């Protein structure tokens, strides 16, 4: 019994379902809690989203390539401390920002080197750096928080152009760049190949090691970038920056349709996943005013989204994992 070819070849069911869910959620939210969909309100509350969103872009790439990065939250803590310490020593904002980005890059490079060159399992390596980065951040900063970076800096995360906050534009540009990279460039497409089978990819001439190192370094860089926005938003650079973020980012990426096994995923899906989780948390918070429910709903959403995908969509595919 053959299915219509168009349907069988359509690879984006997950994104479509997500889109439908998002519309459904927004509709339900507006119905139950009128005023939810105000543009002003949504944009204002979106500020929380940008930090995660930026890191979700690199996480998508990493997971498609069959890896994972549990250390992004802790990397933020280390970057924040680097930022704070550098600013305190030099009083120069640009230098502090560079220090922040550099710390992220170095951390990512460390991860990448261990995973790619020394062939250690990404879960283990990033679990270790998850603990190590956070610990070092706390030790170096002695638990102190750095602040007073100047009004212009706080404005950075707050300023809006046509109502949309600057970090939003940053994210949009990054998303388009990363999306095009993934979709259109040979390197980008090879990431899918690596996710399917690193061995086969290597035999095809793809420099798996170099790409992997690049991905983790990029992840570190974006963690640094996210930290700059984070510090600007909260006017504080402290070792506990980004605590728990890795879980939220991974959740968004996975809900967005990226398979944890690798080989599948899109930037559009990740964006949808981010929005779905963000809006769900907003809706739950607004309607029930009970903070605990947010964790429960997001946790269940994560499991259910993958479950549905596995049960329904995977049956159409003939791939064996």
């Amino acid at each position, binding site marked *: 019994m053959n299915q219509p070819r168009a349907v069988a070849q359509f690879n984006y069911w997950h994104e479509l379902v997500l889109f439908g869910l998002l519309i459904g959620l927004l509709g339900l939210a507006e119905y139950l809690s009128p005023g939810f969909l105000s543009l002003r309100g949504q944009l204002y509350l979106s500020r929380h989203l940008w930090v995660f969103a930026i890191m979700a872009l690199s996480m998508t790439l990493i997971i498609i390539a069959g890896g994972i990065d549990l250390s992004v939250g802790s990397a933020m803590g280390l970057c924040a401390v680097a930022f704070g310490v550098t600013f305190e020593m030099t009083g120069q904002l640009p230098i502090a920002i560079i220090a922040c980005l550099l710390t992220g890059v170095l951390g990512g490079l460390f991860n990448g080197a261990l995973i790619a060159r020394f062939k250690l399992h990404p879960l283990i390596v990033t679990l270790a750096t998850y603990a*190590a980065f956070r610990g070092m951040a706390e*030790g170096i900063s*002695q638990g102190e928080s750095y602040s007073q970076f100047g009004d212009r800096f706080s404005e950075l995360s707050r300023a809006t152009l046509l109502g949309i906050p600057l970090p939003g534009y940053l994210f949009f540009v990054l998303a388009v760049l990363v999306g095009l990279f993934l979709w259109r460039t040979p390197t980008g497409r090879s990431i899918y190949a690596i996710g399917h089978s690193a061995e086969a990819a290597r035999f095809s001439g793809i420099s798996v090691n170099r790409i992997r190192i690049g991905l983790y370094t990029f992840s570190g860089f974006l963690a640094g970038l996210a930290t700059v926005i984070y510090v600007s938003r909260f006017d504080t650079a402290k070792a506990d920056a980004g605590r728990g973020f890795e*879980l939220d980012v991974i959740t968004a990426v996975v809900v967005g349709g990226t398979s*944890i096994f690798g080989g599948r995923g899109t930037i559009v899906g990740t964006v949808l996943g981010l929005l779905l989780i963000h809006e769900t948390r907003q809706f739950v918070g607004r309607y029930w005013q009970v903070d605990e*429910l947010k*964790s429960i709903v*997001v946790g269940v959403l994560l499991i259910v989204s993958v479950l549905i995908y596995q049960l329904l969509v995977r049956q159409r595919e003939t791939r064996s994992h």
Partner: protein
Amino acid sequence: MTRNSKTETSAFARITTRREFGLAVLIALITIFVSFFDPRFLDAINLRDILVRCAPTAIVACGMMLVIVTAEIDISVGSLMALTAAAMGIMLSENEWNLSLWIGLPATLMLGTAVGLLTGLLVTVGKVPSIIVTLGLLTALRGFTTLMMGGKNIDGLPPSLQHAAKQGFWGIPLGVWVAACVLVMTLVIIAWTPLGRRIFAFGSSRYAATMCGLSEKPLKLFVFAYTGFLTALATIVDVPRLPTIESGIGLEFELLVVTCVVVGGVSINGGRGTLLGVLLAVVLMTMIRPVLTYLEIGEEAEKWTKAIQGTLIAIAVIGDSLLRRRRRGGPRS
């Protein structure tokens, strides 16, 4: 006559290159160093305290070891501990339902096992990757537990339970007894039952195992259910030691257990590892805190505790993997 290096390594070499040996040496070195600084570290009461603290981690690590051997993972054990603690508190506390121990304790164990089974079902039947299931449960169970406790802590556990957990029998607290039993039980499962052999066979090579007709579903269901059961058991023997039951119990516990299992030599790629290694790793990770206290490192250095722990974990985990790689003699992707 040339020596074939692969088949005729000396007994000495074979022992000293094993992970367990390295861990044992490390523990011994640290102990000697600290006792040199402060001989009271070796007091019976201190050793007993450290053993008691090892108990819950060791108990859950037995289950986690099997999970990781089958190439899965469970990062929800901390939140499950909180859930079972809250449930146990509600059932047994004199301020709450005040049920009998004979009802409350088995019920708590069943709750843990049920959640473990749920995890297993989602992984095997639902085909949801275990990292996802347990990640979702990590957040959902914690939120649910906080909701359940309604902003109040739970006191008033039965005195007999508290006494057993704190003082125990013949001077040894309940936790240590139970941990010993669990270790023996797990050892028996691994070494002497077909189930155990299948678990390791499956972990080593899924392909080969499936070709031989082994099915993975019952194995994986078992390991997750076992871990859930053990988490509830750990809760029962350890939580009554604490002053009160609060919603923050078990935070970051999963990190500790997974670290111990990995440092203990169990490979995330599946199929390897010994219980002895895991046990030694548990002791090593648990002794860090008291060692630092006995070394009297002073205020500023105390703030580096997390850094020290984190770096130790990183070194142990990464160094371990590097060594394994070198010994195996070749890259694997």
